[in-house]
């Protein structure tokens, strides 16, 4: 019925206006897809938790409440990430892979890559990461080098 059709049309318009996708979602998707040019297979982690630092709050230097905490989970492991650094300054990323394992850690941002290693406790630090889109790729360090790399979805930090 055209009555139904026109109401559907209105409801669709309402959702489009009041709950639109983030303006940069397609850009971020394309950014993420670029990573697919790596010819290895890798496991995609899921973003399972995120708590943003409250804007405008001042916490003592080094206090964890000043940071955004993000958790990524896969079937085998979890990566916890604390992102600190206000405004447009470079971000400091403190990460922890659990269960602890050594890995090469590559941070992909809109302006390039940063690399570090996670030590045997699974901890890693990246400093001066430009704010914006971020994606982390982990290459586990194993004896035979056969472990599947894993990758986070793109997040905004």
């Amino acid at each position, binding site marked *: 019925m055209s009555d139904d059709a026109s109401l*559907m049309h209105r409801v669709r318009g309402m959702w*489009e206006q009041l709950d639109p*996708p*983030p303006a*940069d979602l397609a850009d971020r998707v394309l950014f993420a897809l670029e990573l697919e040019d790596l010819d290895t297979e890798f496991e995609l982690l899921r973003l*399972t938790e995120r708590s943003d630092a409250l804007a405008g709050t001042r916490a003592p230097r080094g206090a964890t409440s000043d940071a955004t905490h993000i958790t990524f989970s896969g079937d085998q492991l979890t990566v916890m990430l604390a992102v600190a650094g206000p405004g447009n300054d470079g971000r400091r990323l403190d990460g922890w892979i659990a269960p602890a394992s050594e890995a090469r850690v590559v941070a992909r941002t809109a302006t390039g890559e940063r690399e570090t290693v996670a030590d045997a406790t699974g901890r890693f630090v990246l400093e001066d990461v430009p704010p914006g889109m971020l994606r982390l790729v982990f290459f586990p360090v194993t004896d035979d080098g056969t472990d599947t790399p894993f990758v986070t*979805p793109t997040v905004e930090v």
Partner: protein
Amino acid sequence: METPTSALPAQTAPTAPSAPTARAAPATEPVAGDPLWQRAELLFVAWRSGDQHALDGLVRAVTPVLWHIVRAYGLDRETADDVVQTTWLTLVRRGDAIRDERAVLRWLTITARREAWRSSQQARRATPSDDEVLETVLPRQVSAETIVVRDDEQRALWSYVGRLSERCQRLLRVIAFSDRPDYAGLAEELQMPVGSIGPTRGRCLDKLRALMAPTAAPTKEGTS
């Protein structure tokens, strides 16, 4: 930021046999008589034949629809964002399995729904925060340009829709942003026969109309 210059289907899909007409509109603009599934098909075909630009057009054209479908599952914006990204990654990884290119849009929406469903089940186990509860009542992140003349009307409609059952809300939103070929998938998921999707949608719309109509209220407004 947005580059709507990319990927006119007519240019990027020279090999598509069933596309006789040239299209003058950018792929991101809905055009009457040029349904999204068809544009998605053309872009997908072009991408498969090596045109990287076509993937750009495909992502820009279909992402908004995936967003709305995913949001139909009551996911918060952060999670919905993640689900949409995962959906596209899945296409790039497993898109080889799509035999019928006409079905690419349906494949994408079904993949997005499965992922959204899985995420919503995970989220359900956690207690919703105050933020999430609030979010179902008030649309968040309303961008400046959307606050225009029709704002009040839209907000009223939003609150009426919010009073419908979860099932109705999901059904309406998924249908509103899906092409007709998607009915079968939706039926499968809601565990109802394809034939009853239409009537159910009708009942949901009737309920919505009832909410919208200021019925003969016992107070001063004696409307007819």
